[in-house]
């Protein structure tokens, strides 16, 4: 493979740093690298003490692991952010309109803008949601739109994550850590705050309460599968910072037609449940009867309009990678506008011609499972050995409709702190979006994930990725 040039957001190799990084670069040049490295180590101790850890799936006895944190911020200018914000807003509104359509009249299928099989073969489609309009008409209340950058003005949406985006606690704790370690930097630079996210989440969820809720303030709870879930820290973090109850299925029951939680003084009704339990396990009466993580009858109460479930069941259809390839059409169909944010060109291997192209160019492409997530089961062509390519080709031929392929994007880099000084590493960005009937709220910032291994393009935490604080500068 020939050496590729990547866009470095700090412009490390060129003479002057790019404008958004100018102040930071000046500050950095006056710092002692040794003491910065020491701060890196302090940050890790800090994370461990407050317990920001995740459990790795499939490793039952493994220690709770930390996601490595890098102390060099990822900086985005005010004007860059404005474009992203507009694009995300458009995309998220389109997603909600799409979900409402799919579970009701399916106009987009009737109009022939989306092939029927994209929905009919979509494992995340829930028939039980047909004809169901959630309170406030919102389907995906919390979205994490994954973005990558390839040039000065080139951003792509990589995934929409309309189901259950996680990682927001890292956005908040990363900032908290940076504020503690480098307070002086925040006086020098105008960094937009992210700390209001939990309050915004609470407000946004409250605005989605069922119309007939009887209190003045809707009762909100976070539903977690429990302390063994890999994202338990985030569940308790969000409940804590929202001032909401953190509940498990065993705390909940349908009483008087409403979902209620068992308190020390009897049952108390809930209006909104921010659930971090997958659809399949949500209600053993309606879905998987063996689920111990679910609340029997919650779907009945939901259809009767007595509870809001966020995100709505069945939103996962939008996370399907075959569907993703139609997102530009979807945005246009529902908003009447061209999509502001670009999609990564995607070959659907279910289509014969595409499959042929993919097989012919496997070594240059990234191939992903249609329903996959977390970076599992994917092939990064340029990084794969001949043997790996061969093996993957067999998988592709056996089940072509299980895969889509994309060009290997030249992901931008941002420097990280290493023992040898600053070194460029590939990054992506997950901003967090809240949707209520009243507004779409996008926190100025997000989670920057960084591939810590030199040259690696895989940023997932389960595959050796780390995180950075993300700074959106004020005007």
């Amino acid at each position: 493979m020939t050496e590729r040039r990547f866009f470095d957001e700090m412009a490390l190799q060129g003479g002057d740093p790019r404008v958004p990084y100018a102040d930071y670069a000046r500050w950095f040049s006056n710092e002692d690298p040794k003491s910065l490295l020491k701060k890196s180590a302090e940050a890790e101790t800090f994370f461990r003490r407050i317990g920001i850890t995740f459990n790795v799936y499939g490793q039952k006895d493994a220690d709770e692991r930390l996601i490595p944190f890098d102390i060099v911020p990822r900086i985005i200018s005010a004007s860059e952010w404005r474009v992203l914000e507009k694009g995300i807003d458009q995309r998220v509104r389109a997603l909600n309109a799409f979900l409402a359509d799919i579970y009701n009249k399916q106009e987009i299928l009737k109009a022939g803008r989306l092939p029927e099989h994209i929905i009919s073969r979509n494992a995340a489609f829930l028939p039980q949601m047909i004809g169901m309009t959630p309170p406030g008409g919102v389907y995906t209340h919390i979205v994490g739109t994954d973005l990558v950058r390839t040039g000065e003005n080139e951003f792509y949406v990589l995934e929409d994550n309309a189901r259950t985006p996680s990682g927001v606690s890292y956005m908040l704790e990363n900032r908290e850590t940076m504020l503690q370690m480098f307070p002086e930097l925040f006086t020098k630079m105008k960094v937009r705050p992210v700390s209001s996210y939990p309050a915004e989440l609470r407000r946004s969820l409250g605005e989605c309460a069922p119309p007939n809720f009887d209190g003045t303030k809707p009762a909100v709870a976070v539903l977690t599968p429990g302390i063994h879930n890999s994202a338990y820290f985030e569940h308790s973090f969000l409940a804590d910072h929202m001032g909401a109850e953190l509940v498990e299925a065993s705390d909940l029951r349908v009483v008087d037609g409403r979902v209620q939680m068992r308190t020390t003084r009897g049952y108390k009704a809930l209006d909104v449940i921010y659930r971090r339990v997958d659809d399949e396990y949500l209600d053993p009466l309606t879905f998987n009867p063996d689920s111990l993580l679910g609340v029997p009858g919650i779907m009945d109460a939901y259809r009767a309009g007595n509870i809001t479930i966020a995100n709505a069941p069945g939103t996962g259809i939008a996370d399907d990678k075959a569907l993703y390839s139609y997102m530009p059409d979807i945005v246009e169909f529902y908003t009447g506008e061209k999509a502001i944010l670009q999609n990564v060109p995607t070959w659907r291997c279910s289509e014969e011609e595409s499959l042929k192209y993919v097989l012919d160019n496997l070594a240059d492409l990234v191939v992903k499972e249609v329903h996959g997530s977390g970076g599992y089961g994917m092939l990064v062509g340029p990084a794969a050995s001949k043997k790996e390519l061969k093996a993957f080709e067999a998988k592709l031929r056996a089940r072509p409709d299980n895969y889509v392929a994309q060009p290997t994007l030249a992901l931008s880099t941002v420097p990280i702190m290493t023992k040898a000084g600053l070194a460029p590493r590939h990054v992506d960005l997950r901003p967090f979006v809240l949707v209520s009937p009243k507004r779409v709220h996008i926190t100025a910032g997000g989670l920057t994930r960084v591939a810590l291994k030199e040259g690696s393009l895989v940023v997932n935490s389960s595959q050796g990725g780390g995180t950075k604080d993300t700074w959106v500068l004020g005007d």
Partner: protein
Amino acid sequence: MRLNITHKTTYSYDRPVHYALLQLRMTPRSAAGQKVLNWSTTLEGATSQVTYDDHFRNVTELIEMDAGSSAVSITCQGEVEVENLNGVIGMGTGLAPLWLFLQQTPATVPGPTIRKIAQQVKKATEASQLDGMHQLSGAIADAVTYRTGMTLSTTPAEDAASEGQGVCQDHAQIMIAAARHLGLPARYVSGYLLMDEVVDQEASHAWAEVWIEGLGWVGFDVSNAVCPDDRYVRVALGRDYGEAAPVHGLRQGNATEELCVSLQVQQ
């Protein structure tokens, strides 16, 4: 024709039940060919939680058994004005897309027996979907003798077909499985049937509906070798028995259950 229906379902347990939820799909709605004049559901030993329309627009009621009681009974009573449409229900008004009814469920996945039955009517169906389905209904009735007590509510279509015996539920599910196998959308209907000379019945009825191009949904009662007419009341529909079942429940503990049904359908 005006049908008068009284349907009492009682579940008794050998010990008090701590917690149980039941989903009832026992209330017919006014639709093509039927007008519900009055209908009521009375519960003993249980309390209603919510009532709503499910994804197939079935009127669904969630009830909770009263803690510590050892029996629950559900009494439905009402009058329905029925019209003879010769089985043709029409294009329907629901939001559920047709393709949903083309997908097999675990209860309807065809095996060799059902595929063989379907094969017999393949040609006829290609020529005329309606004729083909009439033949299919007849072929299933020939292959699977109506006999109670041989199958359970959970018996998959293929098992009943290969056993060669079953009840109306099995006939309906086999018909659905075969129709889908031939590329026709099909669904399960649970309901009531006015029987000749018989007032007291042992169980409610079930049949299949198949989507025929040009006609829309058309009913086929395999067990009685007819298309539903003004003796039939449609109560609930689904992709298989499980989705349209009059009662679907979940119960904690290991009490032994006994079911007792008393049903009268009369003019």
